[in-house]
């Protein structure tokens, strides 16, 4: 994955670039808005990570300019402003995801990878992971021969996990995308939902599909 990080805080940018390189991605840096826009215009990137407040040209303007020129590279906005209306503004300006500072790297990584993959798009009607099958049209879930009965929310939770099969999804991503809540629920309610789901799809099968990624989130994949 090729990334462009537009961030004026030198330390933060270096830390991000280093961390992304460690997990095997290519990361370029730009330290102000104009430089960032120039890079984004002529480079081939999978994802842009754009700080909202930048010298010379702010993050939302960069994304706006790119979208006007028909460049649809997915962009993740980083911002100290984390309220719902700030987020709405960011997404309306053409951002694809929004992450409030301070964030954990694992959260940023998970979201970036999902954005990069989304570009290819996995929008089949039937998702398959190992012998687990989810039919988005008939809302049927089966594992092997057995049919699994899920509550509507459990279905959507599994659907989201399977859509991003092989990728880490964080608790916040689940809360935002499956429940559409953007606040902190104090307690880790998501964990309990996951363990319920796990008991339905993995219990009694030798091969567990839904895995917990320590310090990051969850991932569904064929463990073979």
């Amino acid at each position, binding site marked *: 994955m090729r990334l462009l990080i537009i961030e004026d805080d030198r330390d933060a940018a270096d830390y991000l670039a280093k961390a992304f390189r460690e997990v095997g991605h290519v990361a370029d840096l730009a330290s102000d808005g104009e430089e960032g826009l120039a890079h984004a215009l002529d480079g081939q990137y999978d994802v842009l990570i754009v700080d909202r407040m930048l010298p010379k040209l702010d993050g939302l303007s960069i994304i706006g300019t790119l979208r006007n020129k028909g460049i649809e590279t997915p962009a993740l906005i980083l911002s100290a402003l984390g*309220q*719902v209306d700030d987020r709405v503004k960011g997404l309306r300006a053409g951002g694809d995801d929004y992450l409030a500072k*301070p964030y954990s790297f694992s959260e940023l990584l998970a979201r970036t990878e999902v954005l990069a993959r989304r570009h290819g798009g996995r929008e089949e009607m039937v998702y398959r992971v190992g012998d687990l099958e989810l039919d988005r049209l008939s809302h049927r879930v089966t594992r092997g021969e057995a049919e699994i009965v899920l509550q509507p929310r459990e279905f959507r939770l599994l659907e989201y996990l399977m859509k991003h099969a092989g990728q880490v999804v964080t608790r916040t991503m689940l809360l935002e995308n499956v*429940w559409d809540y953007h606040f*902190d*629920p*104090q*307690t880790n309610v998501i964990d309990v*939902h996951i363990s319920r789901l796990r008991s339905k799809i993995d219990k009694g099968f030798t091969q567990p599909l839904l895995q917990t990624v320590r310090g990051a989130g969850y991932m569904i994949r064929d463990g073979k």
Partner: protein
Amino acid sequence: MTANNIALPGDSDAAGLASPPHGEGRALAAQPPSQLARKFAGRTTALGKLLRTTAFKLTLVYMTVFALFAAFLLGYFAWNTRRLITEQITETVDAEIEGLSEQYRLGGIRRIAFAIENRSRRPGSSLYLLTTAAGEGVAGNVGSLATGIIDNPGWSETIYRRVDEQDSSEHHALVRVDQLPGGFRLLVGRDLEERERLYDIVLAAGRWSGAIVLVLGLAGGFFVTRRVLTRIDAMSQTTRTIMQGDLHERLPIAGTGDELDRLAGNLNAMLERIEALMGGLKEVSDNIAHDLKTPLTRLRNNCEEALRAAKSEGEYRLALERTIAESEALIRTFDALLVIARAESGHARDNMVTFDAAEIARGIGELYEPLAEEKGVTLKVEAAAVAWVHGSRELISQALANLVDNAIKYGARAGSADHAEIVLAAAERGDRVLLSVADGGPGIAEADRARVLERFVRLEQSRSESGSGLGLSLASAIARLHGGELTLASNHPGLVTTISLPRTAAPSPLA
């Protein structure tokens, strides 16, 4: 009667501008000579200030209007009276001429001359003069006349002197000259003294009323202005005290219910609000100091401890993990504080929509139900079909989530007996929509209920649970942002927390 004439020491205005404010001048009662000049300046300032007040300017305007009105009234009265007097004179003169002409017709020149002599002798008589065609006097009581008067028949005004008068003073008269058959000329007239006396009276009245208007107006103006100024000065004084930081002060209210009282009342209400906000701010900073510094200290201690004592990589790792956990808790607290601050400042009013609160309750119920079950609590949702409210769906969800989270954390423990139950309800009551969370836990003593709505307050028995201590104050701030309130009550046993919101009409299907 114009403003220019009554302006007091002409340069007092200029002095007023250059000198210290009034209050200071007053305060310098017994000061060393070097400050006497300032004191004097202070006094002229007071006068200058008085003259510059709106009340005084208004007085001047009123005075001018009143004077103009009085002048007009007086003029109208004088003009009418003069007309009346002139009319009376003409009528009298016409009648006399008619009578005398009759005498002449009946008895010739002798009879008319006799009649004139007779009439002349009566007190307060008119003026008579009968002359031949050549102008020689035949009878009458007029000694002298302006030249040419007797030659012009008809009405005219003239100066005259009576025959029997000793002094040489001349009087004005309105006379009519008539040509009698046989060439004789008859003049009859009345003295105009009456009219002139009236003129004098009017003039005097004008002068006096002018003076009275001026004096009374100025005095009244000064009086009213001083009264207003005294109150305004008192207000300014208080305002200055308040600006120096004493927010407890309030503006004086005279109790008359006039516009100044209303203004003072509104300003006091504003001060009340500012004081409350400042108080809140102070409380927040105090609490931040306490509740954010405590975890920060722990954070730092962890790191120091690791640096000092950790030997193995595992120990370092553990310390770092603890550090991250602590910082995450800090971020959480910080986020909650930001949401509260936004809600309290009213900033979050953008993005408000009409939505179904019952659906929110069902959603939150669904989100927390597995967690409740894990803790051995039944979470029951009793939601009305629909309950429309206007506001931020996200914030209301967050508030409700906090209440449910609290109920699961604190409300479940005492109910360890068989099964604890939490009821999440959404209902319409009158013009309110009530979102309530009822648990069967230990509840909160009545004395503590108001306190737990404050930021960071966590009762001793709950210190062991994780949480920022901001849940209830956050819910309360969100409720207030929506024009509602958060109330705590007993559930016998347990606690009911209720967010009461104004109900709105269902959105139109087109919206």
